[in-house]
């Protein structure tokens, strides 16, 4: 008898809890799906690298960056104060580390971003887009996609970011300086024959840079010829046989930056290559080679000097 009474009590409690939960979630659902009617001063529009037309307020002073290269660009154009959030991988310059973290590049925390109330979120590839664009837009947060494939793309990104955060002038100066340095490299290596090289991303398993990797363009500009420049994809897993048969005259080992001590030895398949035999194995800070930002020009210079030392005497 007592159990039946308790049973009925439980049932009722559960029923009301259930109704309560449903009502709350219905309310929050409706709130987030209804388009915001508040129009801030949306008085300019910019096209991003994904071809989307982005509406932005005239004055942007709260920006979140979701990629290390974009963080570097923001600081480089003097916009450090506007940066209110970045990812756990954003470690350069030093000031970037004390910025509030919103997660990593692939799975940032939507709530954190929204809580920071930025006006625009900068993302580095279109693939991050679908995941949260809808959500952010409903909170009046614009998403700007940058997608640089080569050094020109980097210059464009710097210009775009400068324009967004109101540092167009600084951006212009920075781009001009970087162009100058790149041009200097171009003319220095112009006369020398291209060096055939292998870009080793990791030894075991063997990964290299393919056609769509950012660094492939840098290699070309530095007076090198990546033996894997035509391989489809960005970071393909590569056959050891083909690496051996390619007989590269130089090997680039990206290491020492975010990679730490890893990847500091050539892969087994390259141990008898002309590169290894003549000691032409070059370790370069990986952050200078894979981040499409201002330091890419550092990477360009380092590679060029390694490949064509005689041109830089």
């Amino acid at each position, binding site marked *: 008898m007592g159990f039946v009474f308790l049973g009925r009590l439980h049932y009722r409690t559960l029923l009301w809890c259930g109704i309560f939960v449903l009502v709350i979630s219905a309310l929050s659902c409706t709130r987030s799906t209804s388009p915001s009617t508040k129009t801030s001063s949306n008085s300019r529009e910019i096209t991003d690298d994904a071809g989307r037309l982005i509406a932005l307020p005239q004055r942007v002073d709260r920006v979140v960056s979701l990629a290390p290269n974009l963080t570097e660009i923001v600081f480089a154009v003097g916009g450090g104060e506007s940066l209110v959030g970045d990812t756990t991988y954003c470690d350069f310059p030093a000031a970037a580390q004390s910025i509030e973290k919103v997660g990593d590049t692939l799975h940032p925390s939507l709530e954190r971003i929204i809580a920071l109330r930025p006006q625009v979120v900068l993302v580095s590839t279109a693939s991050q887009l679908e995941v949260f664009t809808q959500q952010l837009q409903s909170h009046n947060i614009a998403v700007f996609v940058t997608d640089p494939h080569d050094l020109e793309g980097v210059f464009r990104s710097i210009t775009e970011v400068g324009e967004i955060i109101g540092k167009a002038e600084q951006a212009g100066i920075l781009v001009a300086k970087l162009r100058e340095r790149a041009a200097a490299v171009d003319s220095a290596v112009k006369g020398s024959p291209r060096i055939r090289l292998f870009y080793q991303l990791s030894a*075991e398993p063997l990964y290299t840079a393919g056609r769509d990797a950012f660094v492939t363009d840098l290699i070309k500009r530095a007076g090198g010829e990546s033996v894997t420049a035509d*391989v489809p994809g960005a970071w393909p897993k590569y056959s*050891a046989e083909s690496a051996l048969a390619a007989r590269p005259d130089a090997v680039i080992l990206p290491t020492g930056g975010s990679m730490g001590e*890893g990847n500091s030895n050539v892969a*087994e398949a390259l141990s008898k290559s002309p590169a290894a035999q003549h000691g032409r194995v070059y370790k370069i800070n990986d952050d200078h080679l894979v981040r499409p930002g201002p330091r890419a020009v550092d990477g360009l210079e380092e590679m060029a000097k390694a490949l064509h030392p005689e041109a830089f005497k």
Partner: protein
Amino acid sequence: MTVTVSDTSTAIRLRENRVTLQKTVTACLGLICALGVVVVIAALLGSEKLPVGDTLCSLVSFGTRQCGLTNDQFDILFQIRLPRIFLAAAVGGSLATAGASYQALLRNPLAEPYLLGVSNGAAVGTMLALLFFGKMEWSRPLMAFVGALIATFAVYRLARGKVGASPERLILAGVIVTTFLSSVIVFVTTLMDATRIRSFTFWLLGDLSGATKALLPLAIAISIGGALVLTFNARSLNLLMLGERDAFDLGVEVSRVRTVVFVVASLLVGSSVAASGSVGYVGLVVPHLARLSLGSDNRISIPAAALTGALFVIVADTVARTIIAPRELPVGAITALIGAPLFIYLLKRA
């Protein structure tokens, strides 16, 4: 009541319905020949073209003669391609043998190293070895073995009810452990630097490109040794396949055989996973193939599974490293692509 029966005719009829030494030796020799042919063909295929005649000549001489191959071609053949082929054979043989033994011991045709959590246990063990003892290569198969044993133990304890571990409970417990460990693997590999402990595609889909000089002989030795030990317990496993109680009644030392199978199978799986990550479907499909063609008698089906497993993974790996050359696919993707439809077909046949 005496029944007069023609002795010779009954004897002949009796002989046809069972597995004999002769049948086993014939089957094994046939499979070894097939394996030899497959090894040679796989040695001729790769992302770099090698001249057929010179390659065959050099192979036949076991690498003592270069036969017109350039230094690079010789290196490709004997330093990269053949070690990889042998590793594929060792991994395939080990996983198939382990699968066949699990299926016999646990009386469950679905038992295999991945489903039982053993592969993932070995993977976690190897990851820890890479994290903490990165330089010492020997730590990897050792800790993989330990990981595999711990997973086996966990599954067995989870599955043990009042009447012992029924085959169904073992699979259920195995699935729980393996999915849990898969999540652990993805979690750790996402957080940590992939160059140190490999990406999760390595662990969950396998990769035979790391045939290092030190670990390859170990993998081969374990593969052959393990298969031999388990084959020498084949008669006990035959009886165990019919139930632990019946086996006990007929004279099998059940707990001893169970321990041997668990330990040896863990060793086989551990050495494979440490070398190449987890290559799925081999332990599941190959023993079925062997049993369907040659019968359930483990004296023939275990060695046959070992040899067929070696064959299967060599073929899968050859596809994985040539189909989008010079890029490579993970070998586990190919074994799944071949293995899954093959398994469905075998199920329909049975």
